[in-house]
């Protein structure tokens, strides 16, 4: 057997020229790079984003109507001029190359994207998509971000007693609230808040709370502006807190329940540790671990979760902007915003993956290998 195989092996190696050797080496080193965890998940993230972007590109163009039609319709109903006239007027005011095929547009857009250029809004020529995003984004990050963090902290502190006293009245009441809070979508909570305390009880003036701050104020670090901004954000933030809180409470309850059954908690108590130490460093810390991953992942959904809520409260954040872009079929703005929302989700997942090791030493070691 050995004798048979020996010459065969040498034969195979013979045609190995310098070129193919180099190719093999290149392949090897590429493989090595790909095997690096960070590089691999990063590549996967890029591919995911590209796929979503391409789908978006196609989908927005498949939606009935286009930016020109939408505006033409408006002009027709308002001014009573001929269709042709209206069409020409609109087409002239828009930033559209009507000769370009969709495929041309796709590659044009993809090329721009590689240069980090999101293009120019179709319906308001001269405004860069990126500038529009920069205008609306901070408000959403502020409102949903506060909602998320407040609900996270509250959820952790409310979830632990649920686990400690499970089966008690306290647990039943909190569990009922959590399921209710999780089951009802945030826009329903938003509507409820507007209708019940806002319209029926007149606790606050919904009309005055439109927008992100009172008209006439200059944004900046002055008390008046900050107070106004907080006032305008209060209802959306409250809505987010109510809508997300239940999820955190239930997660923390189940996580804590699991940890309470762990040997190390039992041993910690037998060691005569102070109750405070056991609750915080032994139960709390281990129970909250999986929730941090969940939190990092939810950061990605921050931007997209408030779309309808912002519309309900007329809070001018990125969701409101997305809504407007859809209404007027502003393709480039739409693509820009969707790219942002997708990238946020994908990268927060990536971030969660890469940072979990900082919190959990067990993952840290295997990650380094």
């Amino acid at each position: 057997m050995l004798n048979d195989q020996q010459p065969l092996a040498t034969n195979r190696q013979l045609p190995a020229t310098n070129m193919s050797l180099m190719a093999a080496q290149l392949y090897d080193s590429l493989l090595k790079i790909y095997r690096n965890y960070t590089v691999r998940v990063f590549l996967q993230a890029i591919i995911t984003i590209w796929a979503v972007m391409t789908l978006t590109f196609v989908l927005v163009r498949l939606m009935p109507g286009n930016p020109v039609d939408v505006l033409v319709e408006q002009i027709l109903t308002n001014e009573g001029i001929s269709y042709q006239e209206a069409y020409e007027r609109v087409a002239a005011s828009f930033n559209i190359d009507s000769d370009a095929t969709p495929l041309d547009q796709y590659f044009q857009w993809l090329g721009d994207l590689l240069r980090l250029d999101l293009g120019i809004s179709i319906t308001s020529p001269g405004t860069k998509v990126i500038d529009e995003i920069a205008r609306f984004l901070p408000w959403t990050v502020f409102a949903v971000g506060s909602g998320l963090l407040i609900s996270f902290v509250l959820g952790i502190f409310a979830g632990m007693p649920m686990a400690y006293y499970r089966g008690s009245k306290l647990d039943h009441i909190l569990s009922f609230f959590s399921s209710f809070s999780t089951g009802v979508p945030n826009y329903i909570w938003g509507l409820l808040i507007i209708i019940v305390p806002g319209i029926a009880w007149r606790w606050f003036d919904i009309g005055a709370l439109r927008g992100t701050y009172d008209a006439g104020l200059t944004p900046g670090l002055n008390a008046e502006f900050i107070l106004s901004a907080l006032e305008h954000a209060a209802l959306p933030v409250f809505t987010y807190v109510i809508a997300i809180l239940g999820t955190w409470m239930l997660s923390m309850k189940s996580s804590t329940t699991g940890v309470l059954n762990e040997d190390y908690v039992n041993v910690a108590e037998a060691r005569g540790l102070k109750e405070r130490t056991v609750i915080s460093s032994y139960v709390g810390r281990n129970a909250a671990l999986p929730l941090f991953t969940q939190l990092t992942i939810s950061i990605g959904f921050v931007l997209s979760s408030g779309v309808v809520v912002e519309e309900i409260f007329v809070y001018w954040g990125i969701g409101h902007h997305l809504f407007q872009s859809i209404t007027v079929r502003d393709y480039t703005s739409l693509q820009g915003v969707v790219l942002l929302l997708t990238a946020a989700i994908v990268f927060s997942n990536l971030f969660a993956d890469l940072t979990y090791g900082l919190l959990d030493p067990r993952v840290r070691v295997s990650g380094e290998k």
Partner: protein
Amino acid sequence: MSDLSPETVLRVDDLSIVYRTDRGDVRATNNVSFDLKRGEAMALIGESGSGKTTISLALIRKLPKNAVVTNGHILYQHKNKVQDVLGLSRRQLRGFRWNDCAMVFQGAQNAFNPVLKIRKQFEDTARAHGWTDKDAIRKRALSLLELVRLDPERVYESFPHELSGGMKQRTLLALGVLLNPQVVILDEPTTALDILTQRAIIDVLNDMQRQLLFSIIFISHDLSLAAEMADTVATVYAGEIVEIGGVDDIFYRSLHPYTYGLLTSVPTLDHAQDVLQSIPGSPPNLIAPPSGCKFHPRCSFASDQCQVEGPLLELGRETHLAACWHKDRLLASRKEVV
């Protein structure tokens, strides 16, 4: 209470414990009494579910929530002061645990908090009992880790998952004696370990006990471990101590058919035994235990008397007690065998 001899560190007196369950009360411990002397090693042996662990958990009041102590006292004597463990306040109990009586639980695999370094867990323990000097804690911890034959510096700065099962078990032993407790309870200290690690743990335990002079209660169904470690052996059956005595008495002159059954179900080197005996039947239902002697349905010596009247734990010979009506018949039959 004051009749405790100065040599006694722990007295369990007529202790009864019941688990309240949906199906009824499980009488897990019935009128158990024993004394533990300073420096003594006592083994509790018996089948799974016989109530060994319940007894030991009661000693540090770490019983599950549905357990109720229906009778008895647990007296702990230290520096001429006698306390009833069952009467300690929450605060006193926290101080008592680990400082006076430490328990090394079964299966050390998950005994350590996975997100804290071993060092932090030693420090937590010492600080909870009033130690403040970090360097003193470190010094003490390192010397104990050395005593259990680990690389002290490395282990001290490790996370639990970086240690093997045997290393964790030994680290837990070191942690167990960190505060110099008078009593150390070991629940199955060697199960789930391979035979070489078992050996090492036993040696370490013997060393430690010789140097640190604490008393040991250990729970095991490993009879060879009991034979090797214990001064006194107590056989537990259906929540009762059915036989208690010196290790040689129990192993060579057992007076209870159950103990004898346990012994003959283990292969030995020096007895030419053709067949390993097993005890027929299974441990009794503790919700509705058998009448009379609880062992009688499984006992080959059982008579009519056994079905009606439960025997008391009586002196058989010197310090050797057994709860059986037929001690003499057992001893006689045994002589024929050996």
